[in-house]
């Protein structure tokens, strides 16, 4: 029933669980998968006093971030390939991960977002918040949440 599943990953172990489930669901539904990793821009404090001139550090930081992102998405792609599920990788810079996820879902015409939730509760949820919760609030398509 789903034809195109977006699976965002942050490279964490909890995301890996969602990946396995996502591939199984895609296989059952005959869907394809887009693996997504949102790269956040370099924190402003790296541009602050003391670092202001050192563009090289910022460039290096961004380069490594992207390399790490590609690595995580590629791992997802390998799993999908093994299961014979068509796969596409997207690594994108966005101000926050949830904005990137919602934008990618629209742009790629996905009909499901499948992601994990760290499931923070109480104070930690208020302070750190939940990317998944934000995605649910903003997404136009269904969101399947793994714990």
């Amino acid at each position, binding site marked *: *029933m789903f034809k195109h599943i977006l699976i965002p990953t942050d490279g964490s172990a909890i995301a890996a669980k969602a990946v396995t*489930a996502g591939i*199984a*669901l895609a296989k*059952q*539904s005959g869907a394809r998968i887009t693996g997504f990793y949102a790269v956040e821009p370099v924190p402003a404090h790296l541009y602050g006093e003391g670092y202001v001139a050192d563009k090289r550090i910022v460039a290096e930081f961004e380069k490594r971030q992207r390399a790490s992102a590609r690595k995580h998405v590629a791992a997802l792609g390998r799993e999908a390939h093994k299961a014979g599920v068509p796969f596409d990788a997207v690594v994108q810079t966005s101000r926050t991960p949830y904005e990137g996820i919602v934008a990618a879902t629209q742009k790629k015409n996905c009909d499901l977002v499948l992601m994990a*939730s760290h*499931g*923070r*509760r109480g104070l930690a*949820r208020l302070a750190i918040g*939940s990317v*998944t*919760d934000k995605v*649910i*609030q903003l*997404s*136009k*398509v*269904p*969101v*399947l*949440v*793994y*714990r």
Partner: protein
Amino acid sequence: MFKHILIPTDGSPLCAKAIAAGIALAKESGARITAYHVLEAVPARLYAFPYRGEEEAIAEFEQRRKDAARKHVADIARAARKQGVPLEPVVQTARTPYEGIVRAAHDLACDLILMSSHGRRGLARLTVGSVTDKVIQLSKIPVLVYR
């Protein structure tokens, strides 16, 4: 990949979308459905001073709610039967809907909760909250959220 899907309903039009999707997913997966409706305890203020002794009114209130709940789950059962998906209706009392949903998913050994979210944002989310968000925080199994 899912074998037993719990679909909580509050009888709102928003739920209809989730129900239709749930039946389609169950059909594709060869799963069975438990349609679930929570009856919240009668608000304490109904027992307070000017109403004290109006046991008849409270009994009537509870009876009507139960009837409405049964009607909602019966509607879902009819839709599922049309698609040849096995469905069992459950109407249960719980302190809050999210507690009832999480407990039922556990007691009935479901492997997916499929529900809709009103998707309140900002202040409304802080004050009214989100049943779905609570379910995600507490559930041990995946939650598929429709908007």
